[in-house]
């Protein structure tokens, strides 16, 4: 076993060596511009792009023509939301999203608010899921788009996408889902789920960084978008810019590998994740899981170790790469807005760690991490005045703190 151990696979994943091998010829040998229609260099590039398009379409149950390649999920989210808001401005100006969305969705919505759009940010329940009744109640005649993520990047919870899709279809509202964390991890089907727009990123599924895709439904309804990038009219005019052929080959291969291995890999991820979870819960008191375990990515565990501050915990396990919702790990000094949205309290947000298990993690690594985390949490609790007070039976919520 080699240190450090990478267990932050929601942030990014390594490129699968098979993906890398598939990409390799497209740097130096096959370098053509896929838009070059009159020579073999262009034809070869185009062939590679179209293969990738089919592979991406296949993993979400779409057709190749419905895939628009982008630079990643942030761009896909921007194109979907701004593109719909502008294209359907005459129909309405209301967008519904959720408080726990990724910043690429939230900040896009805030941008549109400045331009006159009205946005509803749905609160989530304590388990992290959107309340369908609240969603239904928020829909108006002016609602043109609902954007709710498939799987959350911090707590891994899976939103009831199929139910949301059904609701949107009934009301004639377009449904966009940021499926960055879900595609390749859990089965995604845009037909079954009534999804109209879906964002994909390659680097979260063992593909390269800098490439992604947006699924744009072509039939019932045919979704139209206002382009956000003007230029040569690539990707049926929806996204100009010379195609990233190498990246698209990588994204396609990553999708193909994930699709074939998903069931088996999902089982292995869930086994390792549950082993980690069960051992932490058995060894430590005052440990809280953030978000429902029932509807969750198989490789995610987000857990708060009460009375221990997240950054100090990360410091103690410095040979293990994970993330914390603690303020101290971010530039803003604000704890995770996702955890705050669950209503768990800022103190538990400060004490949270996100584990993201990946394809290349071994059981030995997960066991090592488990033992190390238990060890450091115990050590830090000996240092913690809050744990001491808790043990003395003091109710910390009743203490008059000197906020600073």
């Amino acid at each position, binding site marked *: 076993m080699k240190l450090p151990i990478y267990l932050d696979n929601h942030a990014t994943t390594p490129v699968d060596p098979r993906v890398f091998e598939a990409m390799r010829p497209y740097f130096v040998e096959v370098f053509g511009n896929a838009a070059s229609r009159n020579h073999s260099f262009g034809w070869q590039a185009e062939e590679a792009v179209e293969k990738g398009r089919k592979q991406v379409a296949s993993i979400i149950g779409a057709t190749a023509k419905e895939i628009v390649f982008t630079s990643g999920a942030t761009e896909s989210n921007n194109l979907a939301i701004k593109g719909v808001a502008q294209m359907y401005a005459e129909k309405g100006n209301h967008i519904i999203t959720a408080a726990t969305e990724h910043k690429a969705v939230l900040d896009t919505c805030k941008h549109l608010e400045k331009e006159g759009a009205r946005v509803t940010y749905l609160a989530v329940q304590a388990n992290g899921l959107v309340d369908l009744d609240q969603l239904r109640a928020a829909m108006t005649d002016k609602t043109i788009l609902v954007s709710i993520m498939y799987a959350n990047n911090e707590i891994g919870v899976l939103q009831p996408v199929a139910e949301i899709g059904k609701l949107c279809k009934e009301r004639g509202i377009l449904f966009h889902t940021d499926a960055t964390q879900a595609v390749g991890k859990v089965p995604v089907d845009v037909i079954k789920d009534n999804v109209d727009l879906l964002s994909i990123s390659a680097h979260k599924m063992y593909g390269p960084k800098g490439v992604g895709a947006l699924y744009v439904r072509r039939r019932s309804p045919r979704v139209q978008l206002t382009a956000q990038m003007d230029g040569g009219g690539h990707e049926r005019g929806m996204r100009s810019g010379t195609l990233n052929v190498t990246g698209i080959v990588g994204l396609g291969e990553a999708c193909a590998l994930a699709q074939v291995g998903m069931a088996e890999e999902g089982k292995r991820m869930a086994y390792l994740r549950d082993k980690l979870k069960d051992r932490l819960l058995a060894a430590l008191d005052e440990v809280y899981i953030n978000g429902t375990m029932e509807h969750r990515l198989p490789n995610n565990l987000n857990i708060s170790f009460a009375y221990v501050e997240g950054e100090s915990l990360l410091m103690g396990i410095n040979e293990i790469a994970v993330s914390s919702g603690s303020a101290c790990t971010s530039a803003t000094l604000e704890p995770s807005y996702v955890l705050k949205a669950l209503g768990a309290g800022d*103190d538990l947000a400060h004490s949270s760690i996100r584990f993201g298990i990946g394809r290349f993690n071994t059981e030995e690594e997960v066991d090592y991490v488990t033992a190390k985390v238990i060890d450091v949490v115990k050590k830090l609790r000996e*240092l913690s*005045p809050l744990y001491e007070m808790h043990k003395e039976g003091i109710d910390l919520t009743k203490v008059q703190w*000197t906020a*600073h």
Partner: protein
Amino acid sequence: MAYSDKVLDHYNHPRNVGSLDKNDPNVGTGMVGAPECGDVMKLQVKVNPETGIIEDARFKTFGCGSAIASSSLATEWLRGKTVDEALEIKNTDIVNELSLPPVKIHCSVLAEDAIKAAIGDYKKKSSAAVASDQGAVRVQ
């Protein structure tokens, strides 16, 4: 973020961790910060009433590595100082000693606040004790 060697040393080998009896008249206790802000420091001093010298200092801290290091360092510095010398410790001294980056300066501020709170608590206790002693004299 990279930690300085001194922060790492205090984090890995915190000095003077623990608690003193807060009901002891010679012990001053300071607790500052709030859980929702991500750091709480408890700092205690035990003062020799004859000499006014801090004979023992202990801490417990919930917070990031820099907060732990700041309070650990504070206990080291407090030991052997008089109560009045202790009040001269400034957060900037802690920043310099631990090479804290700008984003962690609040940890040193909290440590200075904790020192002031602990000394303040001790002074309050001892002046109350003096007052009650004087009261006792008058009764006699």
